Every structure is written in C-alpha cells, then in structure tokens.
C-alpha cells in the first residue's frame, strides 16, 4: 500500500484513497484465499468486505440470535418461484464458510469433463493441474474425515440404515481442527474448530501485509479503456473509499457478484450475467427412534449416503438444537408439540438434489431478486429421494418418519408446491466459458474483454457440482492467485510458508 490519503474539500474530503496492486472484493471462500495467496506472493493487497468482522466470543449457540447476526437478511433470503426456497448466505469475514457445515469435496471428475466438453474450459478443468490447488487448500484448512465417535448418534442411525440396505455411504471430510462436536456449525462454531476462511486465510493475508477493511460496500468497479483501475466503496463507518488497483478480484458470491458487475456496466456482453443460477435444493426428514439420539451432540453434517448420486440425489447429515428442529419439523399444532416433546429421540437426515433447474438474479431497488422455478425433473428427484430417505430411516428401526410433505401426501404424489425446501451452494451467475458469447469470464476467470477484472467465487462455476462447492471455489481461487503471480502452484503449503 502507498498509504491512505484524503483529497478535495467538503464532501470530497471524506473520500479516502488507497493504492494497491490488487483489490479483492469479498472475504469469503474465493476472496480470502485469493487475497492470502497474493499477499504472501508479495503483492500489495486490499480486501473490502461488506459485512463485519465477527468475534467468536459472541457466538451464543442460539440459532435465532446467530441467524440474525451471521447471515444476510437474517438467513431469510428467499427465491421467487414454486416453491419459494430459503437460500441462507453468510455475511462478514469468512462469508458462507463461517456458517456452512464444513463439508469438503473435490470437484467430481465427471463435472470437470463436462466443463471441458460443454464450456471449452480445457485448462480450468485439467484435473492434474488442479490437484496441487486442492492439496494446498486441504492442508491449509486441516481437512480430514469425521470419526464415528465425533459424528454422534444421529449419524450412527443413518449408517445403520444404509448398512441394512447395502447402500454406499461414508463419513464426510471437513475443515475442522480440534472439533468437540458442539453441534452448531451453522450458527457460529463456539470453539473455532471449524477452519473457515475468516480464521485461516484472512489472518494469513493480514500477516502478509494485506489491508482488510470490513464494512466496505463496493458500489462500482472502475474500468478505463478496457483495463481495471480500481473500485469505489461506501464505508459503514461513514465516508467513501477509492482503491486504485490494476487488478480487481470480484468475490461477492454468486448472488451479489452479478449485481456489482451489472451496476458497473461490466460482463453483460454475453447476455449470461445473472443467469444460469444453479442451486442444490435440499430438505430434511425426521424419524422418531426408540433410543435417545440427542442429534445436536456431535457433528451435524458428518455422514453421507451417495448410493443415488448418479441420479442427482445425495443424502447428507443435518441436525440442530431444539429451536432449529422446531422450525424444520414438517408438523404443526398438537403433532408438532408432541414430536418436540420427543426431541431427544428424534433423528434427522438431509436430501440434496443436483439440479437441472436454472434461475436468475437481478437487482430491484438495490436488492437481489432471485427467480428459480423447480423443474419437473428435479421434483421427480425429490419424490424418489423422499421415498428413499423414508426407506433409510425404517431400515434403521424408526418408529415413525416425518417427511417434509403436507399431511397425507405420499412422496410419489408430491408436487413442487408441496415441497418444503432450502437451498445451498448457489453457482453459475457469471459463468466461465471459453467463448465470450456464452460466458462472463474466460478460463483464467478474467472478464471477457476487460483486462484485470477477475471473478473468484461460486458465480464462475459453470455447472451444478452435485457436492458441496467450497473446496472447488477455493481451489479455483488458488489457481487464479498463482496465475496472477505468474507462478506454478506449490505442491504443499510448507513450500511457501517455510521456503528452503
């Protein structure tokens, strides 16, 4: 940095200017990783994050309170369409990695193949070239498989069902270190065991000299004669900020990146900006067991069943404290109260669909409007998935199963409007494609036709992954950072942290 300065008089005097090599917008999975790698590589980096810096001392393990504090819109961002779908997004340093379940999958090879074949992204989808990126992130985040002991009894029930049915299953790999199974990954890890980027990559970036500014709402990316010049932001503390930089990395997330690009007049040439929104629509089912489960004791998302992954149906663990369960139980009135009285014997498991539906996002009065209609093929996946999850719980010995459907509606008769859904992992709204007529960014994640503006978040991922995307986003950000540094990705973190 060349230091901050103020210029002008009156209103203009409140404009602060900073010069840097790179301005990174957003400190989530993509932005934090890019910023840390670039700063450690010797670049002068400024990170602007719209949300706050969170203090783990204030993580209360109370879902309502933490939803309001850690999530955009208090976790109540909703899509327009049938059915309306809740789309929870994290807010603050760490982005959604702060509130996700920590599950880490590499990009499936079949997905990389699709990126090559359908989007012409040979280099981006090169599995061998991505391997050191994945390894580097996995090492930085201490990714390892959950043990059965830590997974808890909720996972043991799903495992019992899967084993009885002979379905493929396993324990998930997560970015956690010293986890004691507090059971509130989605509401702020009180032990800081979850290695979200707010406590891993952001401190690394700062230690390497990056300036990280929270509460900075970037209004425009500045481009002159086809070259990035910096950004303009409004500060929560008052005043405005200009960062002058010849490289800008936009990493506001799949919902907000297209909005920033659009209001900056960028990325619109292909007509794809804000389109191709892919989600993982999901739902949860409950089972009343004879045994005490205490579902929130252990890692909520620790176990998966991938027997039907080829059909686009994935089962992953989900669990939570009583207030979370009370909001999710597909019952009402007396039946709801009776089931909650048995909370300690309730088990829960999630169903996630790799969607074929596609939505869009655009701005209305400065806020994102997310349109997403669940296609019939995806409704059919939910029908099959719900029938399977019922089978899983019954094979595990459930006394009663509560599916997320209206009373009396059988899974095979469910319609889109009957489904009670949330969605995770939004992707694709500034998708990469080798051709400028089909995509917003190229294979180097640079905006087509503009030098120096790159995108490093889920918006560039051109297709649904079928698995949790944080590792894909971080690996792509690692590749981008080393590309900007003009270096090969080191095989391990130590090569950079402890150069010989």
């Amino acid at each position, binding site marked *: 940095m060349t230091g901050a300065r103020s210029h002008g008089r009156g209103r203009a005097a409140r404009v602060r200017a900073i010069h840097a090599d790179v301005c990174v917008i957003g400190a989530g999975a993509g932005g934090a990783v890019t910023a840390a790698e670039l700063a450690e590589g010797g670049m002068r980096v400024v990170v602007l994050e719209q949300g706050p810096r969170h203090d783990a001392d204030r993580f209360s393990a109370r879902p*309502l*309170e933490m939803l309001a504090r850690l999530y955009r819109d208090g976790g109540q961002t909703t899509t327009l369409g049938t059915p309306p779908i809740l789309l929870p997004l994290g807010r603050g340093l760490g982005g959604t990695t702060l509130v996700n379940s920590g599950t880490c999958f590499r990009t499936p090879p079949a997905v990389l193949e699709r990126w090559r074949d359908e989007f012409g992204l040979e280099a981006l989808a090169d599995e061998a070239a991505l391997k050191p990126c994945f390894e580097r992130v996995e090492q930085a985040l201490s990714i390892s498989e959950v043990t059965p002991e830590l997974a808890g009894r909720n996972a043991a029930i799903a495992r019992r069902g899967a084993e009885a049915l002979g379905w493929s299953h396993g324990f998930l790999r997560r970015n956690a270190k010293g986890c004691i199974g507090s059971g509130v990954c989605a509401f702020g890890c*009180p032990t*800081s065991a979850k290695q979200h980027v707010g406590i891993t990559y952001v401190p690394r970036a700062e230690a390497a000299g990056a300036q990280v500014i929270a509460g900075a709402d970037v209004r425009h990316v500045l481009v002159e004669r086809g070259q990035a010049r910096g950004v303009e932001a409004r500060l929560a503390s008052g005043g405005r900020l200009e960062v002058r930089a010849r490289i800008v990395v936009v990493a506001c997330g799949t919902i907000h990146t297209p909005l920033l690009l659009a209001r900056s007049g960028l990325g619109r040439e292909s007509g794809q900006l804000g389109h191709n929104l892919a989600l993982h629509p999901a739902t949860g089912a409950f089972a009343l067991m004879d045994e005490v489960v205490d579902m929130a004791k252990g890692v909520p998302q620790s176990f998966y069943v991938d027997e039907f992954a080829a059909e686009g149906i994935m089962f992953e663990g989900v669990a939570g*404290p009583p*207030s979370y369960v009370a*909001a999710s139980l597909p019952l009402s009135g007396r039946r709801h109260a009776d089931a909650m009285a048995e909370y300690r014997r309730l088990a829960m498991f999630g169903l996630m669909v790799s969607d074929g539906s596609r939505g869009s996002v655009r701005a209305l009065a400065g806020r994102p409007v997310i349109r997403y209609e669940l296609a019939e093929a995806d409704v059919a996946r939910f029908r099959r998935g719900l029938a399977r999850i019922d089978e899983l719980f019954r094979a595990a010995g459930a006394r009663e199963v509560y599916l997320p459907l209206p009373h009396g509606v059988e899974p095979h008769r469910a319609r889109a409007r009957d489904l009670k859904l949330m969605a995770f992992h939004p992707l694709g709204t500034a998708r990469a494609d080798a051709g400028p007529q089909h995509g917003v960014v190229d294979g180097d994640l640079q905006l087509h036709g503009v030098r120096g503006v790159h995108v490093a978040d889920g918006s560039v991922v051109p297709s649904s992954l079928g698995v949790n995307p944080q590792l894909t986003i971080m690996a792509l950000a690692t590749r981008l950072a080393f590309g900007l540094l003009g270096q090969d990705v080191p095989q391990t973190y130590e090569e950079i942290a402890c150069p010989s």
Partner: protein
Amino acid sequence: MRKPADPVRRGLDVFVDAAPQPQRSGLRLLIALERRPRGRRLLGRTHAIDQLANGLVAMGHYEDPVNAVPLGWDADAIAARGRALRREEGRL
C-alpha cells in the same frame, strides 16, 4: 414504565427484524395470527403458511433455555465450553 420484553419474544424479534421487507411485515403478521386462537384457525387452512407460522413461534419458544434445557440442549454451557477451549488452546 414499559415492562422489558421476555427473552423468547426478544430473540424472535431480532430474527424478524433482520428479514428484508416485505418479508418482515409478513412474518410479523403471521406471528400475531399464530398467537391467537382465531388466527391459528385461519392459518390452518393453508398448509405451507400454517407450518411457517407454527415453526416461527416454536423456534422462539425452544430458543428459551426454560424449554431447551429439559430437552438436553444448554446453549449457554455449549458457548461457555467453546470460549474456555479457545482460551486454553489459544484459538482465534
């Protein structure tokens, strides 16, 4: 002098306040209806709305330690254990 809001209502209010408009007004209306017998009957006519309203009020109810601790969930103990562990091991 106004009585301080009870912790259950406060938690739910904080949650509803964080919602964007027009959802916020809609949620307030649902909660108000759910808390009245006639309102509950009205909501009961539409499955999705009924569940949303019921879930919202129930979420507030079970956030209260008075209702959560007997079900084996002590949020304050979880948070305190987390803080102690972070201090002990120097975690961020």
